[in-house]
């Protein structure tokens, strides 16, 4: 579990995170959502230790990050898998070399065992026959799968994903979302996803933290988000025409239902 207590982060005069507290539980897909500039990328980078918070604490299963020694921090980072927005695959390495990289760096496994584990993980993300290809030779969706494979190959406890659907078509996005959720459950990983993709929010948002101007405006799950009356959330969720129409039809349906129920009640009374 990742516990965030009152974290603050500023860049010069600009205060980006203003005292955010929340928890991210294992075995769940935890989402950080918000408009561009709301602070979600800074929050993710702060959780990853790329940015140092100005105040507050982040603890990983009870280990407070700021209290760890540099060696302990490095050891903790080996427990973290990360899927970057642009995949961040090493372009001079083949797919299998990319996936094998964390094992070569942090384990004493033999080449044969590494190969077996790489094949297993690549099969898990449904990627076959691409082992010898370079990242530039495969599609964006396949690159994302390789990035996920690299992130989980060393059995991480924590998985962070920065906009995993960015640049992907809706169908591939769903596949990637489902894959992340399956892996989260299968390995009981604490997964934190940074996104503004509403499909992901509704599909895999088991815990959703909504940020607005560096403040945690709301938190809940993908069912609660549809029912909330929080104005900022409603504006954010229903900002697209498609979702507006869905909401209008949902409201019309519920109004109709309400009307029917009232009519039935009147009939019964009569």
């Amino acid at each position, binding site marked *: 579990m990742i516990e965030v207590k009152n974290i603050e982060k500023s860049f010069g005069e600009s205060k980006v995170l203003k005292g955010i507290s929340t928890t991210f539980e294992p075995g769940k897909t935890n989402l950080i959502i918000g408009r561009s500039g709301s602070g979600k990328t800074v929050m993710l980078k702060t959780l990853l230790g790329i940015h140092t918070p100005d105040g507050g604490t982040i603890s990983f299963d009870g280990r407070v990050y700021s209290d760890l020694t540099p060696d302990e921090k490095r050891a903790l980072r080996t427990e973290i898998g990360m899927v970057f927005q642009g995949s961040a695959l090493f372009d001079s390495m083949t797919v299998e070399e990319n996936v094998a*990289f964390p094992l070569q*760096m942090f384990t004493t496994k033999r080449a044969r065992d590494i190969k077996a584990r790489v094949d297993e993980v690549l099969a898990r993300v449904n990627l076959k026959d691409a082992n010898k290809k370079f990242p530039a030779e495969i599609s964006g969706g396949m690159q994302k799968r390789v990035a996920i494979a690299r992130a989980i190959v060393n059995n991480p406890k924590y998985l962070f994903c920065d906009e995993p659907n960015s640049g992907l078509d809706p169908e591939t996005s769903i596949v990637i979302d489902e894959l992340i959720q399956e892996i989260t459950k299968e390995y009981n990983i604490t997964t934190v996803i940074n996104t503004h993709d509403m499909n992901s929010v509704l599909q895999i948002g088991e815990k959703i933290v909504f940020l607005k101007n560096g403040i945690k405006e709301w938190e809940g799950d993908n069912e609660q988000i549809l029912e909330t009356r929080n104005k900022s959330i409603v504006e954010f969720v229903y900002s697209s025409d498609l979702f507006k129409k869905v909401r209008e039809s949902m409201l019309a349906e519920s109004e109709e239902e309400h009307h029917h129920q009232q009519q039935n009640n009147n009939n019964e009374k009569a």
Partner: protein
Amino acid sequence: MIKALHQIGRYFMMLKEVFNKPTKWKVMRQLIFKDIDDLISGSMGIVAFISFFIGGVVAIQTALNLTNPLIPKSLIAFATRQSVILEFSPTFISIIMAGRAGSYITSSIGTMRVTEQIDALEVMGVNSLNYLVFPKIIAFLLYPFVISISIFLGIVGGWLAGVYGGFIGSDEFITGIQRDFVPYHIAYAFIKTFIFGFVLATIPSFHGFYMKGGALEVGKASTTSFVWCCVVIIFVDYILTQLLLS
């Protein structure tokens, strides 16, 4: 001025981090061999070509300027040898290497920065500076080998241009290159080469590693790194010449 001091301070902080927390030897060994191939072996062609012809040009120009019949023709070989060993091979070739290997280093590390590959290394817990820069420093320990080849080819170029251009006889040239030979000059050339090798490995890495922006900025960083490499090489050349030859 403050910005320049900040950059210098940052450069030395980077050097400290490069030698901190080493990458696993098994992985590092592969990186070193790859960098030797890219930076040293890959530069041999251009170094050989330039050295050979510049050696020839130095011999021809010296020959054309020796109009006094009292001056022995063996001086053509002497001048070629001295120019090549003392200045041309260590310094001029280092400037060429700043363009060839330096730009490659800055653009490759810069592209890794732009595409978040360096962030990926850091998040995994890898000391990215050690992983990226240390193998280049080790690869450049072979730089004196490149300069030895350059010296050899420069003198051979001078010999061929002198003899086949009809400026000097072969025996006279051989006599000339042995004349007043000071072995210390070779040591001086290699001391310079080691230091230039370190400059060539670290300054382009610094500009690539700390660059910000996108593809356009990678190009700008490569240009800046070339300019700074040249400035530092020429400045260090001056200091070392004062210290070692005066």
